[in-house]
């Protein structure tokens, strides 16, 4: 461990914990070819990372959980197609009524945006007052999304505008995106005239899928379309990165 270190040696832990950019990862992979000490450690550390989950106790699973999970997935009337669809019917609309489903989706929502509804929803949920989660959602309009970047030609998806009680939400489901690395995020923008309103960010893992639910601050906002950009981090209030997906421009 007293050998001379190169700057690339320092990348190992970032790569291991997944906190690196794609470029850094490739840089480190190249470095592994000629840095013997890194190579040795890398293999061992990778192995440790893989066996770490073994440091957990096996917990007995509650007996009623299977029924709950399955009935949320297989509602009697639930559509057995893929979740994302260009058609008007969206599998979510068929499973709205399940409290756990809501709770689960709440989680997804919160991951991806800043979550002001969380307290109320979650508190209600935990205290067993599940009825607050039962407000039905109605679909208002679908916005099919298309690829805008030759880098990611397979991108497609959908933005669904739904109402729930007095609020309006966007449900964004995308496929075919490149996985995000480091602090990169995809950011959704609502287009109105020349304005671009932030509608939250999401990350994508190797499956290329992204899901985001966003509650509109102003339910009466005019919507001309949507765009999705790849951003260096989740702090932007204006698009900075390249546009990867968007609605087709309206014919004038």
């Amino acid at each position, binding site marked *: 461990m007293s050998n001379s270190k190169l700057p690339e040696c320092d990348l190992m832990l970032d790569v291991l914990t997944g906190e690196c950019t794609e470029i850094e990862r490739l840089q480190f992979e190249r470095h592994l070819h000629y840095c013997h000490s890194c190579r040795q450690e890398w293999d061992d550390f990778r192995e440790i990372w893989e066996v770490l989950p073994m440091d957990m106790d*096996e917990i007995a699973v509650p007996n009623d959980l299977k029924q709950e999970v399955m009935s949320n*997935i297989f509602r009697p009337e639930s559509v057995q197609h893929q979740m994302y669809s260009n058609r008007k019917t969206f599998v979510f609309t068929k499973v709205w009524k399940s409290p756990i489903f809501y709770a689960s989706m709440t989680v997804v929502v919160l991951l991806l945006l800043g979550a002001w509804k969380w307290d109320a929803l979650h508190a209600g949920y935990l205290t067993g007052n599940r009825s607050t989660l039962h407000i039905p959602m109605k679909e208002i309009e679908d916005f099919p999304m298309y690829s805008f970047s030759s880098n990611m030609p397979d991108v497609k998806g959908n933005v669904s505008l739904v109402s729930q009680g007095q609020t309006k939400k966007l449900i964004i489901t995308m*496929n075919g995106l490149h996985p995000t690395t480091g602090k990169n995020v995809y950011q959704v923008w609502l287009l109105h005239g020349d304005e671009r309103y932030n509608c939250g960010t999401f990350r994508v893992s190797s499956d290329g899928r992204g899901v985001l639910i966003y509650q509109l601050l102003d339910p009466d906002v005019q919507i001309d379309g949507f765009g999705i950009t790849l951003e260096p981090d989740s702090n932007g209030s204006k698009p900075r990165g390249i546009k990867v997906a968007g609605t087709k421009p309206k014919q004038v």
Partner: protein
Amino acid sequence: MDVISDAELMRRVHDKQRFALEELYDRYVKLVYSFAMKATRDEQKSREIVQLVFMRLWTSSLSFDPAKGKFVNWLITITRNITIDYLRIQNRKNHLVDITDFRAVEAAELTEETVIEQLQRQRIRQACQELNEKQAQLIERIYWQGFTLSEIAEQNNEPLGTVKSRLHLALKILRNHLGLAQGGVRDVEL
């Protein structure tokens, strides 16, 4: 009767065959649930994570490639990603999960594990015991709770380099106690 492989089951999940998802649930729910309990120490949250994981298996076009490794590792990766996403939401609100009692989770009965799995489990546990409190806490935060190195540096008010060296040292301790370093295997009592 032949046992259907995990990969075949996953293929059938793609074809929307319900029994395949149920079979995968029966095989792996304990793993997913235990992982979630270890990370969240909360039954309700763990139930929601289980829901999210199996929902993800069913609805997304995730495909499992047996050439790239074992199904169980793939599933753990998905579970970990979902759990981390889940915890990140909460951490945003609560800043930190109280980690003082993370060993308090009750151990339940061991099921039909192979001896090898038991051995490996035993080894990793023993190795984890060798970490001092700060190192164990760091692994806990990074691996189980999904904090980034820089977030931890910020929380601890320490330079990033200090956190990195601590992780590096922790990994080296684990390596030595897992017998990876010199290829030797430590004695394990079962």
